[in-house]
């Protein structure tokens, strides 16, 4: 039976949407440090927020690979928008899908699909960074609810999300997570971050002062929770890797185009062997990143998620590769690349930020090192 290839069709339509609706405004969002809320409304109108949500809650029930295809294209125009969407596709709602009761699913998942509810994922803390085992935000059990106290920092969409998925420590000393709604008494949004790049993240501090959270909003608590959260991170890493891949592709494509237009002594830049080698290295790196990211996105061997090594490798290669490629792109453009009139300098700032979003790449090396240490050879 003749049917379109779903991934190719999604990619084609994403490219057209991004070219028309996101790329023209990306510089404005960056300059104004503006969280592009209008994008989320458009994503809801286009049925994109439900991409991975099961059909019975109004979504399309697709997997990580489809999300990666869309995020890569969006990141080619605006990485902040891509990260904001990534949180909705690959992070907080997946916890609800996998670990909440039916009532919570019915309350939040259709609301996400229609864009009425947007999520953040609150992990990082001022004193312990993103180390889950040392979290200090505390949930104390009091009858049928929990009382949450603590502070989270640098939370993507912190200032704009309606529901925060909060990683914390319970009073039995176990690590887990729960959903905290923005109108909960005692909750407030603290200072907003003024980052070098990724300026549309809406990144902010979250403060919890005796916030009462109903018991049913607890998603993970007790034995096995940490392992489940780490497995979930394997998926989010690949989503983030696809965003770095998108930034790198955009920088490479623009550099290649420019190298054919810009002439020096009557020859285009690409006729110079020194720059040909630079462009060749960029092309090879982008291709390698793409294969690694796509392969990780299609890896489902760990209960539907990629494993820790594959996902960490994809994230390291893509995030660090994007910094390298945006730097090389700036070399191709020379002074023009350093100017804010073009997008190259923004790509470089955003690529640099992607080293830190979702945990540093050096932390991932720790994880890979530990994996290799235990592995039988």
């Amino acid at each position: 039976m003749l049917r379109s290839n779903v991934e190719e069709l999604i990619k084609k339509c994403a490219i057209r949407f991004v070219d028309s609706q996101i790329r023209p405004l990306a510089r404005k969002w960056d300059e104004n440090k503006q969280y592009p809320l209008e994008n989320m409304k458009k994503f809801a109108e286009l049925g994109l927020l439900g991409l991975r949500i099961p059909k019975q809650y109004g979504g399309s029930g697709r997997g990580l690979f489809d999300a990666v295809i869309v995020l890569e294209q969006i990141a080619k125009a605006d990485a902040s928008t891509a990260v904001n969407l990534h949180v909705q596709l690959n992070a907080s709602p997946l916890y609800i899908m996998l670990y909440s009761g039916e009532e919570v699913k019915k309350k939040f998942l259709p609301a996400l699909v229609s864009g009425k509810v947007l999520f953040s994922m609150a992990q990082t803390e001022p004193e312990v960074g993103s180390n889950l085992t040392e979290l200090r935000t505390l949930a104390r059990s009091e009858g049928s609810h929990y009382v949450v106290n603590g502070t989270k920092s640098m939370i993507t969409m912190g200032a704009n999300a309606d529901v925060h998925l909060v990683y914390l420590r319970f009073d039995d000393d176990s690590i887990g997570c729960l959903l905290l709604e923005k109108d909960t008494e005692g909750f407030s949004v603290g200072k907003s971050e003024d980052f070098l790049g990724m300026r549309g993240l809406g990144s902010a501090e979250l403060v919890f002062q005796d916030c009462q959270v109903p018991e049913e909003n607890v998603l993970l608590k007790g034995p096995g929770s940490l392992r489940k959260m780490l497995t979930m991170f394997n998926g989010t890493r690949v989503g983030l890797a696809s965003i770095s891949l998108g930034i790198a592709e955009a920088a490479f494509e623009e550099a290649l185009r420019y190298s054919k237009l810009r002439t020096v002594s009557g020859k285009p830049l690409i006729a110079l062997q020194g720059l040909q080698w630079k462009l060749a290295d960029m092309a090879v790196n982008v291709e390698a990143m793409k294969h690694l990211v796509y392969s990780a996105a299609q890896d489902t061997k760990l209960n539907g998620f990629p494993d820790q090594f594959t996902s960490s490798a994809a994230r390291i290669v893509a995030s660090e590769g994007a910094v390298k490629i945006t730097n090389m792109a700036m070399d191709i453009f020379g002074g023009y690349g350093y100017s804010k009139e073009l997008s190259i300098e923004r790509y470089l700032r955003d690529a640099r930020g992607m080293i830190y979003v979702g945990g540093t790449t050096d932390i991932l090396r720790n994880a890979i090192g530990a994996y290799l240490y235990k592995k039988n050879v």
Partner: protein
Amino acid sequence: METIVMIKQVPDTTEIRIDPSTGNLIREGIESIINPDDRHAIEAALQIKEKLGGSIIAICMGPSQAIDAISEALGFGVDRGILLTDKCFAGADTWATSFTLGRAVEKINNYDLIICGQQAIDGDTAQVGPQLAEYLHIPQITYVKGIKEITEKKIVAKRLVESGYEIIGCGLPALLTVVRELNKTRFPRFDWLIDACNKRAPIEIWNAADLGVKAYQVGLQGSFTNVISTYTPTFKRRGEILEGDSQRMVEDLLTRLEENHLV
């Protein structure tokens, strides 16, 4: 209101390459899209459906990869898609195309309105819509830039003409060809695009046998015109020196500007 939209898949470029031996377009390596004017036809159909209810069928004639045009149409909110594909449909001129589309409409046999884009960016003939209306013996309003009134029985539309527009009404069923000033197109929904790729999607594939036509009636064999040669025109800057006194030269200049509709 039962509406049929005719769509064509075209190469997404104005830099069309032509095979010098056959005179046909080279499609390899070029992204294919729904013809821009046809997107406005889809949008018009969707707006009419939102107002009057009913359903929309999109028909596309083309090679198997034109399934993407049908899938995208479903992504916009079209209810049913039909791809007309058969080796013998290839190389059709506007007559053979209109005839094939007409047979598909006759097979559907239940419609109030047919909407086509004004013209396709690869052929630029603007003939298929009018010829299809003639084949079906139904009234047509071409170059529609606005719809003033539409009911189950009749339509009143603004039709673009060189000096402005005219208002024309007719009974239904009828055929419209629409221009891009008619509306602003929307984007396809991703969830509907995904559904359109499902084997249970409401998409049918019809070939020559399904339409009850013979190979000699369609495609290159059924065409009344033949492409003798096709070439990319070369544009050269051409200067012209106006002579005479200042008044004469200014008058000549204004005349030329007026002749070319530049003032």
